[in-house]
């Protein structure tokens, strides 16, 4: 390696990711409440130690310095977790749901985190994709990969209806538009009998090139859970969306987004097309949410309006808020925290919304930029580290 003493080696980052992966495996596997409690305590102590001894900061630096390598390591870690859980239906379902929420939240990050466009109707666009999958997947022969794309397109088009109001209004007035739209969407689904009304719709399982995902893979005489297939597909989707979002963030478009978010007026005086950029962010974000929704629908096999109501939109916002607005890597732990914890600890299942609300209130009061705030832009991440 050509790393100097200032540039950290990749080892701490790799070890860190491995530790987190092992933690995730154990967390997803055990069901015993006392075991979970013990795990929570161990994780808490480990986290505290990591922060106190500076290991966490070291991990972060190493992660940033070896980004390409680490992206690969994370994917491998995910594959490892999936492999270990290969026979556990429920754990894999949770894992896939976390990944899909991450995809939707990356969409919200583009809107809110990069460009500063408010969207309190995230669940509506997620739902638009899901209902598209139900209708198109159930009644036409469109290949299912295209159904996912169709879900994204429909969500994007639906969002386009809101473009004019969102662009013409600002601040609280813009927030109203998306809140009203979220309520309108849910209320429309509830009363529209063609789309199943309050009972919802069943959605056919996904099949790609004739390979039905609802059949478990059989490898060497062992039949794996069919959720392995969905976990792999959602992982693939998450990777694609992550790469696109990262590329976007680091391109000139991402810089323009930042400018619009920080000061719209200043951005426009420098000749940026503020409206165009906002449209772009809003549509891209909704497309991501719609694609996640389409896969979600095909994975769960059943959707109803309650899956896409206003509180769900708030959960999406809570995730990006907890993770740190605009920080893509923050989304994963936040989504895992918000989604896995209530599923695992049955006694808090009832209290989950109360706990989310409490957690977000505390974060807002004491760390208004989120738990893992987005770092300032560094134009040449690797070089910047080795030169300083």
């Amino acid at each position, binding site marked *: 390696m050509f790393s100097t003493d200032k540039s950290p080696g990749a080892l701490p980052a790799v070890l860190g990711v491995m530790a987190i992966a092992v933690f995730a495996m154990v967390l997803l596997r055990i069901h015993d409440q006392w075991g979970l409690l013990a795990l929570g305590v161990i994780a808490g102590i480990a986290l505290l130690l990591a922060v106190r001894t500076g290991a966490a900061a070291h991990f972060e630096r190493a992660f940033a310095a070896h980004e390409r390598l680490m992206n690969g390591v994370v994917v491998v870690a995910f594959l490892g977790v999936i492999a270990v859980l290969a026979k556990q239906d429920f754990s894999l379902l949770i894992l896939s749901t976390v990944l899909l929420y991450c995809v939707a939240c990356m969409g919200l990050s583009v809107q*809110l985190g990069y460009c500063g466009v*408010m969207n309190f109707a995230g669940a509506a666009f997620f739902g638009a994709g899901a209902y598209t999958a139900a209708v198109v997947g159930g009644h036409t022969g469109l290949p299912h990969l295209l159904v996912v794309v169709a879900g994204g397109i429909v969500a994007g088009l639906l969002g386009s209806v*809101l473009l*004019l*109001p969102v662009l*013409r*209004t*600002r*601040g*609280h*007035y813009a*927030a*109203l*538009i998306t*809140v*009203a*739209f979220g*309520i*309108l969407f849910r*209320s*429309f689904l509830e*009363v529209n009998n063609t789309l199943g009304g309050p009972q919802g719709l069943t959605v056919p399982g996904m099949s790609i090139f004739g390979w039905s995902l609802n059949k478990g893979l059989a490898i060497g005489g062992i039949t794996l859970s069919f959720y392995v297939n969905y976990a792999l597909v959602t992982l693939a989707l998450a990777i694609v969306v992550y790469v696109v979002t990262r590329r976007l963030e680091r391109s000139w478009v991402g810089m323009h987004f930042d400018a619009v978010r920080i000061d719209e*007026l200043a951005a426009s005086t420098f000749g940026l097309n503020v409206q165009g950029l906002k449209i772009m962010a809003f549509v891209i974000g909704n497309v991501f949410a719609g694609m996640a929704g389409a896969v979600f629908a095909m994975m769960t096999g059943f959707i109803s309006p309650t899956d896409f109501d*206003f*509180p769900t939109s*708030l959960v999406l*916002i*809570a995730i990006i*808020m907890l993770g740190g607005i605009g920080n893509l890597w923050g989304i994963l732990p936040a989504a895992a925290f918000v989604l896995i914890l209530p599923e695992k600890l049955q006694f808090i299942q*009832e*209290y989950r*919304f*109360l706990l*989310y*609300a*409490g957690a*977000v*209130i505390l974060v*807002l*009061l004491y760390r*208004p930029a989120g738990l893992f705030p987005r770092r300032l832009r560094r134009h040449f991440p690797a070089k910047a580290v080795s030169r300083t």
Partner: protein
Amino acid sequence: MDIGFLAQYVLSGIMLGVVYAMVAVGFTLYFGVLDVINFSHGDVLTAGAFVSLATYLGLRATGIDSPVVVLTIMLAVALATMALLGVLIAKFFVLPLRHAPPFITLLITLMIGIAIRESIRLFYPSGSNPQSFPQLLPKTAYHWGNLIVRQDTLILIVTGLVVIALVNLFINRTRAGLAIRAVAQDGETAKVMGINFEWVVLLAFALGSALAALAGVMNGLYYNEVNFGTGLMLGIIGFCAAVVGGLGNIYGAILGGFLFAFLQTIVVVAVPSLTAYKDVFAFGVIILLMVIKPTGMIGEVSSERV
């Protein structure tokens, strides 16, 4: 259509409008003094209804059953506790974040709303089921052809209109109201003029939250039912009404409240087959109105300071 039926719809529309307007006035008060949206407002309304319900159950247990006495105590308790709750929310969550981006305040009040709503659901005895609200107002009905007017409806409408008028007088004719308007216009200058800024903000929150509690009790008396989610929808409608009317403007809020009620009612009257879509229609029209008038019907005249 028969004139009696039409009058019936008009009456129920006015009833809805009164409740919406009361909620919307709260939103507009908060926005006026602090430029914030307090999204917990709707859930404060629910909490008010539940507190009054609990008071009613308590009073019944002690054997007091004169409806007037019971209702007075219920209202006093509900209004006082909610005013206090409003003050607490302002003091500990909204004021400390005064200099944070508006998005943060919006989010924190949304989360406080969820916390209130979930607390009612979880900690009120069988709180996840709808609770029946007592009928305390006389139910005598008058008939004019097809129009049936119940006394309780009339009392509620008159109460609502009188309260809205009183709030209006308070804002426009008293010293405290003057202070609220001064802070709304320019907080910094108001401070320089010797107005106790924090006190005014807390007063506005107390007033708005007490109004929400009153709206909650009225809503309960009208439908004879409350549930933990009552305030969610009423809060969102009140917010829409305040925004469409023009945030920070009390007449705008009243206008917006009645407009929303009108939109919901007009669908039921004009196209009965689309009754189920009345909310879809109303919210759709609201979004459309925002396109035409991006800062509300009685919009604040604002130019951006750079």
